């Protein structure tokens, strides 16, 4: 299974250091909680690592062998990396099932032009949609789903990628307790399969429950890292994150 490391990663926006020469490692078979106050650079870091935003300098190392000085978003799937977004980004005016099928079918223009989804694509789509309880909604437009269902669909889309490295950007935000249970079980399942799971989350109870390792960011810098209970009891973390 893949790991992902960053060395000296740097990004600034108009003079503000969003990610300031970070050195981090995300291990396989673990859920790494990535926490920090609003604006600390957590989502920016995920955007940098998935190519949604280009970084200014530094290196991203995948599975110890692949060193990337530039990350293109469309290359990340080939490195078995996938993600969800902080603000849900679905293909709104497409049916639920198409939101899944579109990530399952062939890449490449000619190949995809002469391909309609096949039985195994449908079976995989059914598997991930059933996992999040959305199979019955498969023919509805994504735009017509409730907020919680939209979050679940985004998670199902990430699952459909069958990646090695998953970035979940606040997947629990605004969810009802029963849906939180579903998402928690999915994350644990991925960890148990040896996947690398990075979880950005503000709910400390969930971080304690789910994370094997915890990284705290503040103002684009690494504030602390270690076992969740150890990290969350550190004075600097409490001051920066909890404002206490």
């Amino acid at each position, binding site marked *: 299974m893949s790991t992902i490391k960053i060395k000296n990663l740097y990004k600034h926006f108009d003079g503000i250091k969003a990610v300031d020469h970070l050195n981090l490692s995300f291990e396989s078979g673990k859920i790494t909680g990535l926490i920090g106050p609003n604006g600390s650079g957590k989502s920016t870091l995920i955007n940098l690592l*998935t*190519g*949604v935003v280009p970084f200014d300098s530094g290196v991203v190392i995948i599975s110890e062998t692949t060193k990337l000085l530039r990350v*293109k*978003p*469309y*290359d*990340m*799937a*080939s490195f078995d990396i*996938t*993600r969800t*977004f902080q603000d849900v*980004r*679905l*293909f*709104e*005016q*497409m049916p639920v099932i*198409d939101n899944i*099928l*579109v*990530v399952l*079918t*062939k*890449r490449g*223009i000619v*190949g*995809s*032009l*002469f*391909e*309609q*989804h096949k039985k195994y694509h449908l079976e995989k789509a059914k598997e991930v949609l059933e996992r999040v309880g959305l199979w019955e909604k498969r023919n509805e437009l994504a735009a017509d789903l409730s907020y919680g269902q939209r979050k679940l669909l985004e998670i199902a*889309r990430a699952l459909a*990628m069958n990646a090695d490295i998953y970035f979940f950007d606040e997947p629990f935000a605004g969810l009802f307790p029963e849906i939180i249970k579903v998402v928690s079980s999915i994350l644990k399942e991925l960890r148990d399969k040896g996947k690398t799971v990075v979880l950005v989350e503000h709910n400390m109870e969930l971080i304690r429950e789910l994370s094997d390792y915890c990284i705290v960011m503040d103002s684009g810098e690494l504030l602390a890292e270690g076992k969740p209970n150890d990290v969350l009891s550190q004075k600097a973390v409490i001051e920066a994150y909890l404002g206490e």
Partner: protein
Amino acid sequence: MEYLIHLAIVISIYSILGLSLNLIVGYTGLLSMTQAAFYGIGAYATAIAMTSYGMNFFLAVVIGILLSALSALAIGYVLSRFDGDYFTLGSFGFNVIITAILVNWRGFTGGATGIPAIARPSLFGFTFSGNLSFLVLVLVSAVIIYFICQFIVRSSFGRVLKAIREDEKAIQVFGYNTKYYKLAIFAIGAMMASVAGAFYASYLSYISPAQFDINESAFILSIVVFGGLANNKGAIWGAAFLILLPEALQFVGFPSGIAEQLRQVVYGLALVFLMLYRPQGLVGEYKI
């Protein structure tokens, strides 16, 4: 009867144009205002190949298709650097440039006066000189293009186009280099528009740059929007609606002195009301 055949030919030609632009605007979300340029390239390529080089219509069509595809790839490559409104403005600019080339390259295009005496198509000794036979030819081509469009939008490729329309950045993260998909559909749409241009040139037997200016691009866009975005049938309905409505208004008994002006007003109002009460168009599946 001749009048009805004429209308059917015009509707068929504009249906092809609507179908071609619907792939780009309706399915991919690229609000292009340069479709008339590819329509014009197809018309001029056919006209020049037939009148200056004595080529058969069908060979001339192929040349037009190739030229349009190459132009679309070049224009699309430049436009791929722009998003949203800037893309639309850039595409607008390219239509102006192509029209200017057609006007100013006099030795080749005939300049503002255009190219006359463009022959009708002929195949295996049969010339489609009658309007009925010409209609059959255009109609068959329109049907073929309709099915090609259906094939494209039902394929995995078509699903990616829709995802690009919905959220280009998001679909990139799942392994799609969207630039190539946009270029491909831009070129495919241009090739189809080129076929419409070839039929138009051959049907009227005369073309001039004014027929392919930015107003024509706006009209083709209107066909797609009124018919309904992201629905191939919508492009055909849109073409029929926008061509038949002004014709139908000719039969309304407006006062003779202001009949033409009133027709224009009613036509405009009909379009405004349609957009107000049915923004997705007649049979559209997607709203801008």
